[in-house]
């Protein structure tokens, strides 16, 4: 069975691993480029995108992750992970990997006092709304024609999207008990 790697440089990687383990999936921390050899899919978790990118560069992970994702490795970025995977961001830092055709605005909803929870409709997960936790969340400002929107938030545009083997969510399914987003990502892994 596939092993899911979770980038463990900084952020809430432990929450992703715990959720994956509760649904019976083997998950492992990725801190160095050698760790990438053991995995068939990658999650870039929530955290601070400037910190994560800085550490990816310092420990030679950037080029190798770029190569693997371009070769088709299923990859999912939550919040900071979405910023890391974007083609372009509206701020001058950090420099994103450019693996998904989206332009992202950081802290698009404001500061921490503006962080919120909302039930959002995600058609690929079924009718039941998904409990989404937005923490200093980014948003997709613009996306290319090959990007498929997975969820919208009224007045704020697209908050989850997929382009082939790459998926992003502006919110944190790993902070909830709802396993459906992780199960959907696993279906991308088994289908690849």
């Amino acid at each position: 069975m596939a092993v899911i790697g979770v980038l463990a440089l900084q952020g809430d990687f432990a929450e992703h691993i715990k959720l994956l383990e509760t649904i019976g999936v083997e998950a492992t921390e990725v801190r160095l480029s050698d760790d990438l050899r053991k995995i068939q899919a990658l999650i870039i978790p929530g955290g601070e995108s400037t910190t994560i990118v800085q550490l990816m560069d310092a420990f030679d992970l950037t080029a190798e992750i770029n190569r693997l994702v371009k070769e088709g490795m299923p990859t999912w970025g939550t919040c900071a992970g979405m910023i890391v995977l974007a083609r372009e961001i509206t701020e001058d830092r950090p420099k994103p990997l450019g693996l998904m055709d989206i332009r992202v605005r950081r802290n698009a909803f404001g500061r921490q006092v503006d962080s919120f929870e909302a039930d959002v409709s995600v058609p690929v997960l079924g009718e039941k709304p998904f409990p989404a936790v937005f923490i200093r969340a980014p948003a997709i400002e613009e996306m290319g024609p090959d990007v498929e929107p997975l969820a919208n938030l009224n007045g704020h545009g697209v908050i989850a999207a997929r382009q082939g083997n790459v998926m992003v969510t502006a919110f944190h399914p790993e902070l909830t008990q709802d396993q459906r987003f992780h199960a959907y990502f696993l279906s991308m892994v088994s289908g690849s």
Partner: protein
Amino acid sequence: MDQGTWAVKVGLAQMLKGGVIMDVVNPEQAKIAEDAGACAVMALERVPSDIRADGGVARMSDPSIITAIMKAVTIPVMAKCRIGHFVEAQVLQALGADYIDESEVLTPADEANHIWKHDFKVPFVCGCRDLGEALRRIGEGAAMIRTKGEAGTGDIVEAVRHMRTVSGEIRKIQSMTQDELMAEAKSLGAPFDLVQIVHDTGKLPVVNFAAGGIATPADAALMMQLGVEGVFVGSGIYKSSNPEARAKAIVEATTHYNNPDIIARASENLGTPMPGMAARSLKPEEILAVRGW
């Protein structure tokens, strides 16, 4: 859309995990911290070692310093208020600070009561020396805990003592039977429901960082190996001879805390650490960790 919920308060602390939160006193220092990979900054007028040296009453920073730092960086900006000074906390929330540290580093405004933190939309982090203190603060609404250590000393010994105390008390509660928990809650002076959670889960119900005395990459990794989920570095960076290099090295050592080869490399050629003072040499009235209860 529900704002200021427990999930978003605790959630931001979860996003900070594995990271380093650095004390900064101006926008330039904040930028250096961000470039070095800090996951957040603490906006201050003076770092703890200067507060210690200056004496007098230490209060919330001038709001213009906090807002200037908020403008300079995109990472979360925290700020300190005095223990029990809920109006300073209201001001920090109005400024848009991302986290409030109700801190023993400032001179307490109330020697009996801490702030009732559930009333705020902004999350709070509070210090602790033991499990009872941590659970009392969480009971009042703290969404993140840090062990106090002894701020402004550059001496790690108190941070180690406080973390070992918390961990030992958690292990003790875990090994207890259900009928022993109420007496333990009484002896700790902690809310029973939180003692129950610690018994059931074997950990604090919120994220716990280390603070107070971290001056080297190895200090940060030591605290991580002792079980904290991230570190605060105060005077340790900007009171050293090469803040840029030291900040980066502490970030790397915090991520790779289990990898001695990387910690060794990160520790090379950092110049002189902050001079520091042995926590044991402090007079009783100079000890900050005993502020609050």
